[in-house]
């Protein structure tokens, strides 16, 4: 999926609370955004999310995931149904949708425990590529 602007337009029809995440191909949640809007039943919110994120290990491709949404809200990503867009995005970045849905579910579970917006704990700490990078940098000191 070649994209000129490397971002996706998010349109949300209907007021309430929406939490979106950006996960990489392994299902690691890198960014969370919560949008809450109210005032009228026919409100529409527009947001943009990047499809690439710079990390300490280099730039990685990411996909938006829906962590939670209010009842009745309809979400479109670049004009497509959110689930359809995420499926296509997973194919283009060679990710397994189950990994992304797991990341969304873990994030939602953490929020349900009354912790507010928070990223899921990463078992085992940093991924191996990052550990190697950090280890090399600490050995240089």
């Amino acid at each position: 999926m070649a994209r000129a602007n490397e971002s996706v337009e998010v349109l949300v029809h209907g007021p309430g609370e929406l939490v979106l995440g950006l996960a990489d191909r392994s299902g690691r949640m890198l960014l969370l955004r919560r949008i809450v809007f109210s005032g009228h039943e026919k409100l529409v919110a527009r947001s943009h999310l990047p499809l690439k994120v710079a990390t300490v290990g280099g730039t990685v491709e990411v996909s938006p995931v829906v962590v939670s949404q209010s009842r009745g809200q309809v979400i479109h990503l670049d004009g497509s149904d959110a689930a359809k867009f995420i499926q296509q995005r997973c194919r283009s970045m060679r990710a397994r949708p189950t990994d992304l849905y797991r990341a969304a579910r873990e994030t939602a579970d953490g929020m349900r425990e009354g912790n507010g917006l928070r990223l899921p704990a990463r078992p085992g700490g940093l991924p191996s590529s990052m550990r190697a990078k950090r280890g090399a940098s600490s050995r240089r000191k």
Partner: protein
Amino acid sequence: MATTRMIQLYVEQLSDVLVSEVANLNEEVFTFLDPDKTTTVVEITSETIGGVIAKSSTGIPMGISDNAFTRVRLFFHDAKREEEFFGPSHIPSPGFAGAIGAGLQVAEVGYTPGPQYALARAIGAHAYFEEA
């Protein structure tokens, strides 16, 4: 009889420690208006909490942002016509006839602060309109 309409918007952003850039925030919420009435923008306001704290930077000042860019737009049947208002503003605007919709936008820039930073920032904003 005058009708008051409201748009409330809150956006919060949190990033993982492995992320080395701050994604920009640019959110807008739209509502429909009655074009047969005269619309006045009564109030626009926003507030930010949190921000970015960086250990090292590339020439960009870091710290807690004190305000977000806040804008209200009125839309008309003529797509070329648009009225813009910037917040915070607590004084009613002039009345505009024929507005079919309004949008409340908040924005904060994105940047690359350096290898180590912490990000947790949020913007709350609202706008009130009166239709008479």
